[in-house]
């Protein structure tokens, strides 16, 4: 990355500027790919940009940074995402 020689406090872009924010999570979104209809609502609304969109418009969740807000689960019209308490597994 190009660095600029300036005498001021200049910050440079970095993914994870506040670290791995996935550690903030209390609830974890779990995606059921079989139910997903690739509507991309979760992708467009995720406040963190932690839902990745592939070439075929399938989606996946980046748990390194997902903060566990649950917006994706709330906005998924076909309930392909459910929230699970961290460390607990629903069957």
């Amino acid at each position, binding site marked *: 990355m190009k660095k600029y020689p300036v005498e001021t406090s200049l910050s*440079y872009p970095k993914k994870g*500027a506040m670290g791995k924010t996935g550690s903030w999570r209390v609830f974890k979104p779990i995606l059921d790919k079989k139910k997903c209809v690739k509507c*991309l609502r979760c992708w467009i*609304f995720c406040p963190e940009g932690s839902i990745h969109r592939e070439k075929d*418009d399938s989606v996946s969740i980046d748990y*390194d940074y997902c*903060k566990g*807000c649950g917006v994706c689960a709330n*906005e998924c019209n076909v309930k392909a995402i459910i929230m699970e308490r961290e460390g607990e597994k629903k069957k």
Partner: protein
Amino acid sequence: MALKDYPVDECLLQGNASCPGCPATIGLRLVLKALGKKTIMVVPACCTAVIESLYPHTSFDIPVMNIAFEAAAAGASGVEAALRQQGRTDITVAAWAGDGGTYDIGIQALSGALERRTNFIYICYNNQIYSNTGIQRSGATPYAAWTTTTVSGKNEFRKEMGEIILAHHIPYAAQTCISYPEDVISKITKAKNIPGPKYIEILAPCPPGWRFSMDKTVEMGRLAVDSGAWSLWECENDVMTFNGKSKLILEKKIPPKPVEEWIKYQGRFSHLFKPQRDEERLKAIQKYIDDLWERYRKCYLKP
């Protein structure tokens, strides 16, 4: 444009300092998808300055200039003038400020920049409070809402910034909401391609500020529009158009939901429901919204 046509690239990087469920980051992601990388953003003191995260890093993958709370539009005017001097016409200058920085302390700089016909987009993300400093009232806070400086509910009604902006007769002004990605992106894209001053305000329901569950950010914006507590419109060269549900409400094709359907989910209004219902203030909230729509109809509904 359908969702799948929006760019995959993100100019706001993951792992930033926003609260979970933050409406500002939803708005920023949408706005930056529309504006693209050739954008310089000017950000005053507000949550977004925190979302940029800690020196020497930033979560923004575009150039951002931070400036004093009152000076977003003045700073953007300077950036625009510098680019003009350099003959750079390919870069969009966007100010991005909160409601406190827009309705209250930044209104003078904003009005001045609009009056000077500065070529930039001013975007206000309106979470109806000073959230960065811990939820104080602003000129955008609705009547009766709790904040840390209105502990029994705000005594005054919000001001209508949109109407103040319209009095400047700029080429493009619009209101939208983070819950409507198509609406946000089409309005920002339109503004990008119009020379001169543009103003876009985005309603941004804030979970800690409004006291609702963080998974409901988008739903809270939808309910604001469905109830008429917020409206989607755009005004291009003095031609006013209401959009989506707001158009149907304006034309009385659908009735808005009672405003109670929006406020009952927000803890900042809970004192209106318990220990008993505060009918007087609930009625006053509804009347404010009804009167606003009647005013809109008088001004903008063609017979």
